[in-house]
């Protein structure tokens, strides 16, 4: 978030909206209306004195109304920008009343009440819509009593309650009596999956409740029981099922299948009674709970309709923006040049939203590829920093934020007495432009070769100071920052003397460290401008096409004779039933027309090098590329003798059936030469079991799609399932449609798999059905096994070794971060696309492939990349070649090289090292230095801290 605020290429218009758009793809003109904040962004330091002075208290939207804020406020503590804003709806100052408390409180005169909205016109090549999601307000739902009882919260409200910086500081408290509840109930699917509600599924609520159940107990161990009332637990994403399983092991969490009919509050005790059917006995029952959390649905963002009008794009039936259907492109709107990502086109979970953001960026980039900003750099003569340390220390008041608590004068006097300190100065706002210039002058005047500032946190301001130093040629790594605000004056304001003492100690430690700081040079490495895509399935093809559209040289390598991957064997694609073969033909045609070099029947032999400079030898030729996208796909689980799959020809998998459907050419599907009268599907074959605990995500939607197809030809269908996880755009609607046309859904318990036996020509299926709470027997002509996806072997392992990318516990390739880095890997420059990372539908694979393409593009669009110099370095004379560093580094940065015969020493690849310093901690002989966090620097702090006492 902070990165956006600081990025030189991003212009940020917060508190603003798009009011008009004209033009076409490649040449849009957009009008943005900027609503006034009434607080000058350049002057405001986010100190909050204005807010303290404001007399108005209103509910805080950020805390879902559970907390309060003032009329002048910052929405939350890490807000970007951290400029405050006046909510003029609540503010007292208007034509009649004059309060002006905030204006008087502001030391920097940042507040001005007379600012009018401002229109800005910008010229863009493409647009990305990422308008997110709103939460359904259950206020109108009489049955659930949300409007009556304070002890009923929405999921989002509860989420704020759990947050340490939220309204209750993370304490779980029952709103009516502020006591920790003993029993909590979660009710799923509120406002969705119903005839009167939204028909879609909000996707994220199940896991959100599962997570919150776990968190609630962590926050309040007194909680005795948490019940989750659900219809289907949709733990579909990567790692979700095992997370869900872990919560099932907690004895205080109870999962209860059933949707409450109503929730009633006892007026005296404020306890809540939940009326629900006990589906085991078929009898109505009442569950009493102290608090109820409604997993409230996600709705299209409130401005969707208006924005659709302004942008000229269509909405789907569900009220979200409509995606481009013909090519199953989840990221494209119905108008060229306008892209969709995140929840704009329907509810998504976080990793998919993140991936879609990257994917939409890749698509949008095509229209502006000729307008890339130049990589400029000024030449600055470096200041000579040789000789003994000459340290300058700058103390910031931060208005009264620091100076109001700490005794700056005493500090200044004290700092003067520290060794090698040649200049000390204090300043009202050290970060202001004027003060930064002054700092530069002082560096020159006093020939400072080390600079220490005592101000706010280095996490936000170190880069600013470093840049100020660098601008006049002082190596930025000779700057050191002491956090005397966020970690001192703000948190010890009740004890100013002790706070001052602590500040002085921390400054002394920083000065001691500064003596050992070394100038570090940012190394640059060149970047090959080309990309290799491994795997020619839908994901690989999409990545290649996206990169080609932006003008990057791409090579696509496929092991098989033909391109297309699993797309070749599919019938129709979710969500819009596009024939797979049509899509593949179009994609292949695009590929042919593009500049992508395609090698089929080609395998990767060896991969060497690192980010920007990979050398890949294939069975055809050796390539030098800047980035690699791995899209090698997955396998379908082979049931072997499970359900006698290998024995009987009328036991099929979803994939087998796809093949049959694909060949019917619109006609009737025949199994063993005859049209089946009745078929049964068995879900979760090879998934969600002990051997393979993950959910394969695509099988439920596939089964529903195929069931509908059977119904079209009059075949009866029964589906034996555990939880129907119809995930993806339109899938839930199809599920409802399937029920509507008479598909029978029979839920079987997790631990009682159906049994299939031969019965004449057909098959007999026996299962325990939870609906009737009894054994169900059924004669069918064919059984279709919803076989899940498994990692492709041995390919996945081969690539793991070759690319040095780890595998997740589920066996698929591991992403950089399960939420925030779904397409990146631990190795810079290597990205994942499609099912190699986890099971996905073709459309989802292609969306993720675009994301991978976007990531690769932002790497190879640069000629050179700078390497962070705060990494580890080996002193080879001290290295014993013991391999300790090699074995502990997860980034494979150190490797042993033979410097002379039989002598191996470690060398750290600067492009791979992330600078964590773990290897330096493990090295037995001090051969590795963690630059900028060296042993001397850390020990100097320790010594000075403890030698002089506290």
């Amino acid at each position: 978030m902070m990165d956006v605020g600081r990025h030189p290429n991003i212009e940020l218009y917060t508190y603003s909206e798009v009011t008009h758009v004209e033009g076409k793809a490649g040449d849009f003109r957009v009008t943005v209306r900027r609503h006034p904040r009434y607080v000058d962004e350049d002057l405001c330091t986010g100190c909050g004195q204005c807010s303290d002075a404001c007399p108005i208290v209103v509910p805080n939207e950020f805390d879902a109304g559970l907390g309060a804020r003032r009329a002048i406020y910052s929405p939350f503590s890490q807000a970007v920008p951290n400029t405050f804003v006046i909510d003029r709806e609540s503010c007292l100052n208007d034509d009649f009343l004059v309060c002006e408390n905030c204006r008087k409180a502001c030391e920097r005169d940042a507040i001005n009440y007379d600012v009018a909205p401002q229109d800005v016109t910008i010229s863009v090549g493409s647009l990305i819509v990422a308008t997110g999601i709103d939460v359904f307000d259950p206020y109108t739902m009489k049955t659930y009593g949300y409007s009556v009882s304070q002890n009923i919260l929405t999921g989002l409200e509860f989420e704020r309650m759990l947050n340490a910086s939220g309204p209750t500081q993370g304490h779980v408290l029952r709103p009516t009596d502020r006591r920790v509840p003993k029993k909590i109930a979660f009710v799923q699917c509120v406002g969705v999956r119903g005839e009167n509600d939204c028909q879609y599924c909000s996707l994220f609520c199940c896991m959100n409740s599962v997570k919150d159940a776990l968190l609630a107990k962590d926050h309040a161990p007194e909680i005795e029981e948490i019940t989750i009332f659900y219809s289907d637990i949709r733990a579909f994403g990567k790692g979700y099922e095992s997370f869900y399983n872990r919560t099932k092991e907690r004895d205080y969490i109870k999962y209860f299948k059933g949707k409450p009919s109503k929730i009633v509050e006892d007026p005296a005790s404020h306890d809540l009674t939940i009326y629900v059917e006990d589906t085991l006995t078929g009898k109505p029952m009442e569950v009493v709970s102290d608090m109820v959390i409604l997993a409230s649905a996600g709705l299209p963002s409130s401005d969707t309709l208006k924005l659709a009008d302004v942008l000229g794009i269509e909405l789907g039936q569900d009220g979200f923006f409509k995606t481009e259907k013909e090519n199953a492109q989840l990221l494209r709107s119905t108008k060229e040049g306008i892209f969709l990502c995140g929840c704009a086109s329907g509810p998504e979970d976080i990793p998919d939203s993140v991936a879609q953001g990257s994917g939409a960026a890749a698509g949008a980039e095509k229209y502006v590829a000729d307008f890339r900003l130049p990589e400029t750099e000024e030449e600055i003569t470096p200041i000579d920093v040789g000789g003994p340390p000459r340290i300058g220390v700058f103390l910031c008041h931060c208005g009264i934020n620091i100076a109001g608590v700490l005794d700056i004068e005493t500090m200044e006097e004290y700092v003067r007495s520290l060794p090698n300190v040649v200049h000390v100065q204090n300043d009202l706002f050290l970060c202001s432009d004027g003060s930064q210039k002054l700092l530069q002058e002082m560096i020159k005047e006093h020939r400072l070769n080390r600079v220490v500032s005592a101000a706010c946190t280095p996490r936000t301001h170190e880069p600013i100071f470093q840049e100020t130093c660098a601008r006049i040629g002082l190596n930025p790594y000779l700057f050191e920052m002491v956090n005397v605000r966020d970690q001192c004056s703000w948190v010890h304001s009740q004890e100013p003397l002790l706070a001052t003492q602590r500040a002085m100690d921390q400054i002394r430690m920083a000065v001691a460290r500064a003596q050992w700081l070394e100038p570090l040079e940012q190394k640059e490495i060149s970047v090959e401008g080309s990309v290799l895509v491994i795997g020619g399935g839908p994901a690989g093809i999409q990545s290649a096409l996206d990169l080609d559209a932006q003008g990057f040289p791409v090579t696509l390598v496929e092991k098989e004779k033909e391109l297309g991957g699993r797309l070749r064997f599919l019938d129709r694609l979710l969500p819009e039933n596009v024939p797979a073969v049509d899509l593949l033909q179009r994609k292949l045609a695009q590929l042919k027309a593009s500049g992508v070099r395609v090698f089929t029947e080609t395998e990767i032999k060896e991969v060497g090098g690192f980010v920007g400079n990979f050398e890949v030898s294939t069975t055809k030729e050796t390539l030098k590329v800047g980035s690699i996208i791995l899209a090698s796909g997955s396998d379908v689980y082979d049931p072997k003798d499970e359900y006698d799959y290998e024995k009987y020809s009328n036991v099929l998998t979803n994939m087998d059936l796809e093949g049959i459907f694909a060949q019917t050419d619109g006609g009737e599907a025949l199994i063993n030469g005859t049209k089946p009268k009745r078929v049964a599907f068995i879900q979760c074959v090879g998934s969600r079991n002990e051997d393979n605990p993950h959910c394969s995500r695509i099988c439920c939607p596939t089964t529903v799609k195929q069931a509908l197809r059977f119904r079209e030809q009059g075949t009866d269908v029964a589906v034996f399932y555990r939880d129907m996880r119809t995930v993806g755009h339109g899938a839930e609607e199809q599920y409802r449609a399937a029920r509507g046309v008479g598909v029978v859904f029979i839920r079987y318990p997790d631990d009682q798999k159906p049994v299939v036996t031969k019965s004449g020509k057909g098959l007999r299926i026996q299962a325990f059905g939870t609906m009737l709470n009894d054994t169900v027997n059924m004669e069918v002509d064919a059984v279709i096994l919803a076989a899940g996806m498994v990692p492709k072997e041995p390919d996945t392992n081969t690539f793991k070794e070759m690319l040095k990318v780890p595998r997740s516990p589920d066996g698929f390739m591991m992403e950089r971060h399960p939420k925030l880095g779904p397409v990146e890997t631990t190795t810079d420059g290597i990205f994942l696309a499609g099912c190699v990372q986890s099971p996905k539908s073709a459309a989802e694979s292609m969306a993720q492939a675009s994301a991978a393409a976007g990531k690769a593009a932002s790497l190879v669009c640069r000629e050179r990349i700078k390497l962070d110099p705060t990494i580890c370095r080996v002193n080879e004379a001290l290295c014993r070649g013991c391999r300790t560093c090699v074995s502990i580094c997860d980034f494979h940065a150190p490797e042993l090289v033979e410097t002379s015969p039989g002598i191996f020493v470690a060398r750290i690849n600067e492009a791979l090292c992330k600078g964590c310093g773990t290897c330096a901690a493990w090295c037995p002989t001090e051969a590795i230095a963690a630059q900028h966090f060296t042993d001397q620097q850390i020990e100097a702090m320790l010594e000075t801290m403890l030698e002089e006492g506290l």
Partner: protein
Amino acid sequence: MTETETKGVLVIGGGIAGIQAALDLANSRVKVYMVEKAPSLGGRMAQLDKTFPTMDCSI
């Protein structure tokens, strides 16, 4: 290069998806304009306490 010659991308919405899109574009040396109706970036995700399965903090 003057302003009129540059063409950027407009990102509407400063939640996690929009932020990701904007950063990727900006890192690809593309000019990005980000429009957010609220006073701060962050969207829904900023409101979440932690995210499963890793229980990372959301901000």
